């Protein structure tokens, strides 16, 4: 159409000339090399998966990787917890606690004294040197007995607090090897929450049906955790 109209043709030629001239001048402008190098390097490293971890993690393709990491971390945490709860003699302690599952209450001799006052009664039954940690001494005892495991005596006390059972034994009898630091170590055994303390050559176990969290709360209620 512009070719057919001379005036329009001149106008168009002028416009094309202007465009070409301006494009040439604009194209002669060079960006600072430092800027291009800097931004090129930035965009390359950012785009090849080396960018901010946060944005990479949000990518759907990263979800399986994230899941794998979470599983591995969970396993490591579980293993660490298991190792922390494991100690020489734990098997014997576990068997001790398991004995309670077959009890019906008639095995225990009824008593109404405080748990810490049963040393003489236990001495008569063949367990010498019964002693409880101070935080357990005032707990009301409702029954007690001495039973043997692998030929070694164990003093057992039922207390009227959280339906807990206390076990006292000589640590050497059962191969218990833990620092005698007076600290409670909480662990679970089947459906039982347990706490073990080693002091003065004696091992003391608290056990009741429940979780380790409940055991921690119980210890806190005694003024100890």
């Amino acid at each position, binding site marked *: 159409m512009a070719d057919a109209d001379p005036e329009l043709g001149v106008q168009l030629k002028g416009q094309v000339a202007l465009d070409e001239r301006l494009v040439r001048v604009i194209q002669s402008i060079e960006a600072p090399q430092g800027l291009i190098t800097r*931004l090129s390097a930035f965009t390359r490293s950012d*785009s090849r998966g080396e960018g901010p971890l946060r944005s990479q993690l949000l990518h759907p393709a990263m979800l399986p990787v994230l899941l794998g990491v979470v599983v591995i971390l969970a396993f490591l945490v579980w293993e660490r917890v298991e190792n922390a709860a494991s100690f020489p003699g734990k098997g014997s302690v576990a068997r001790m606690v398991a004995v309670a599952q077959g009890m019906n209450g008639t095995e225990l001799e009824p008593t109404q004294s405080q748990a810490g006052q049963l040393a003489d009664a236990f001495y008569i039954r063949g367990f010498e040197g019964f002693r409880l940690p101070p935080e357990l001494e005032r707990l009301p005892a409702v029954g007690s007995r001495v039973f043997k495991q692998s030929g070694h005596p164990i003093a057992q006390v039922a207390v009227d607090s959280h339906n807990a059972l206390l076990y006292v034994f000589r640590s050497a009898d059962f191969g218990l090897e833990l620092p005698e630091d007076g600290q409670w170590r909480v662990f679970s055994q089947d459906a039982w929450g347990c706490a073990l303390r080693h002091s003065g050559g004696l091992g003391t176990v608290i056990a009741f049906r429940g979780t380790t969290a409940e055991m921690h709360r119980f210890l806190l209620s005694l003024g100890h955790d």
Partner: protein
Amino acid sequence: MERGGTLFLEPDCPATHPHSTLHNGLISPVVLTELYRFALLLTGRGDSADRVLDAVVSDCERRIAQIRDESHRAAWLVARLRQSCMEPRPESPWAAEEAPSPTGGSEPALFDQGLQPEALILVRRFHALPEPERSALALFYLDLLGPEQIAQVLGLALEELSAVLARGRRQIESSLNPDFFQS
């Protein structure tokens, strides 16, 4: 005027549209240069263009991958750059100065970067244009977006863009000395 090219390097994926923002994250130096020219034409200063482009590209690189439609990426990037160029800056170039002169010594930032006098004149004439003529004409002369995308970035219909470009052409032409076209 031949326009085309790939905005982003995409070694593993061929370009399906000349102005598509094919992007695996690699903004080519050629495109970075075009973006710098766009920023320069809008801000009128080399140091401002440098700073604005640096900030926008750094910021956009973290976000542009989230735009799934490749055809929108270039427009988005240009729109962000334009928006940043339009923001008032303390070093805003010529507002309080006299008419530009390539020999007047009032544009050290541009001369320092080795701009030829005619490029300097053109940058300053561009910067003196009103919006949206300035952005429309700059994008029309640069190899970044197609007409539809230019219209989209500027929020214009295609007919309006055509009118704006015609008006911008007349304004830039009238602002340039005839000598400009002799060299």
